[in-house]
């Protein structure tokens, strides 16, 4: 198990030209945030770009922002931050702990459920 990240990511940069080009080349995926569990960093309606290939060669790192499928509700995509990882998957948590349903309730999220790493806002 990696040592847990005690601090969630404090900020998320805006996209640069490179990010936009990568998105146009379909190397990034774009998502719009629904819900309040990532406040104060990400407000509902904010768009982000994720790298779906980021974890092909390495595992998520504590402190990463990720998009993952909910382990119990098929098709429901979540955005959370990685607290720690181990053999079974990632322990994910919302930034707004009081208004987030996350690994504290549904346990670790299996590797196959991780969609990608959030790289930046869009734009």
């Amino acid at each position: 198990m990696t040592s847990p990240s005690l601090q969630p990511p404090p900020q998320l940069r805006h996209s640069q030209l490179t990010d936009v080009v990568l998105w146009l080349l379909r190397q990034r995926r774009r998502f719009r945030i629904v819900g309040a569990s990532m406040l104060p960093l990400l407000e509902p309606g904010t768009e982000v770009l994720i790298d779906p290939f980021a974890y092909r060669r390495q595992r998520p790192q504590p402190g990463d922002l990720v998009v993952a499928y909910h382990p119990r509700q098929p098709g429901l995509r979540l955005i959370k931050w990685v607290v720690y990882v181990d053999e079974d998957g990632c322990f994910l948590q919302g930034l707004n702990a009081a208004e987030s349903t996350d690994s504290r309730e549904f346990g670790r999220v299996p590797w196959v459920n991780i969609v990608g790493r959030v790289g930046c806002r869009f734009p």
Partner: protein
Amino acid sequence: MLNQAIAKLQAWFPAEAVHAHCDGPCGVYDPSSARVAAEAVLSMTKKLVDLETPASGDKAAAVAYHNTFARYTAIKEEQAQIAKDELLVLWTDYFKPVHLEQFPDLHDTFWKAAKLCSACKVEVSVQHATELMEAVQKIHGIFWTTKNRDVSWYTAS
């Protein structure tokens, strides 16, 4: 220029949704529903205690007395159950482990409050109904502290 082009792309091609997810209907929890029910329990309990027994031999007064007594008791029973249900929803759905770190006596507070709801059903006890109101007031304080909001306690009656 680039931002304008991006804004157009955003409008033409809406992004897929990703959920900053919460199972509950976020933000709609409020201990005031438990407070209203607990107030009704206290009110009915006081009315039951204050109800004058009719003079013996006055049949109409006896019927009216028993009818009123039964109605007060039914409302007390019903509202105590509502208070209990509302408290249990707050306890199990709203409060999370992070709150328990902040308020280590959270479980004990809710457990005792739920027990008081039961006691108010079983008994006609002004003391226990008053203690239930105090427990709901304590939960009100804890709840709004976790929301970082200063909501003063008030009662309808």
